[in-house]
């Protein structure tokens, strides 16, 4: 199994070798939209510890919410908790969400939202990934014992 940077995860019993000066910080949250408050708190705490102000958190909160709620809605068969990991390598934040055991679901393949359509034909479906695409610098999908979505975003700090 690989971590969110694509590196093999450490073998049990062997010490983790630090490959970066800023190790990813991971936390797991119950598969429920009620977890969002905790996720925002996790992001705020992570950024504050690195001297990054709350203004930068807005886009990160939105990316986190859209990807997490997608997994809550569509991650059939997934474990009760969803993993969120953050990494900071100035000025780039990496956000990784993993849904262990879930059926394959690749939101990067979702069709583009046609924003030129009249309001009568508009609905919320698909808007979440559309917003993530607009806000993220890079959005990638992989499958490794579950769905793995990774986003990188340069923060103005």
């Amino acid at each position, binding site marked *: 199994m690989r971590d969110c940077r694509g590196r093999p995860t450490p073998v049990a019993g062997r010490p983790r070798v630090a490959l970066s000066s800023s190790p990813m910080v991971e936390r797991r949250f119950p598969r429920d939209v009620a977890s969002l408050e905790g996720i925002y708190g996790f992001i705020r705490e992570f950024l504050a510890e690195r001297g990054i102000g709350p203004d930068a958190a807005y886009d990160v909160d939105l990316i986190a919410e859209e990807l997490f709620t997608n997994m809550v809605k569509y991650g059939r068969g997934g474990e009760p908790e969803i993993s969120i990991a953050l990494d900071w390598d100035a000025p780039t934040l990496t956000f990784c969400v993993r849904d262990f055991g879930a059926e394959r679901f690749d939101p990067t393949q979702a069709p583009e939202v046609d924003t030129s359509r009249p309001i009568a034909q508009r609905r919320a479906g698909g808007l979440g990934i559309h*917003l993530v695409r607009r806000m993220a610098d890079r959005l990638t999908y992989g499958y490794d014992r579950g769905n793995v979505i990774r986003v990188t975003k340069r923060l103005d700090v």
Partner: protein
Amino acid sequence: MLEIRTPSTGQVQLVGRLDASESDRADQTLRAMNGPLRLDCSELDYISSAGLGVLIELHKRLVAAGQTLTLANLVPRVRNVFMYAGLDRLLNIE
């Protein structure tokens, strides 16, 4: 957390964050209101696609009834989300 205040008939203040954990409650509250409605968003700090969905459906319902929905005083971060979604041209935003 989201607070929905109704200081007077037709006037609504959205205060806080309209996200997926608040969208069902917001939808139920707004569904009970008739237009014309003016939503003061000066204290709406955050909105996601779930919140946009609530406002899209509210707009459709009011327009179908011959009424109007106006969004006012959006803070720049929230206004950007409407713009990214292409809704700034479709909804009545002051």
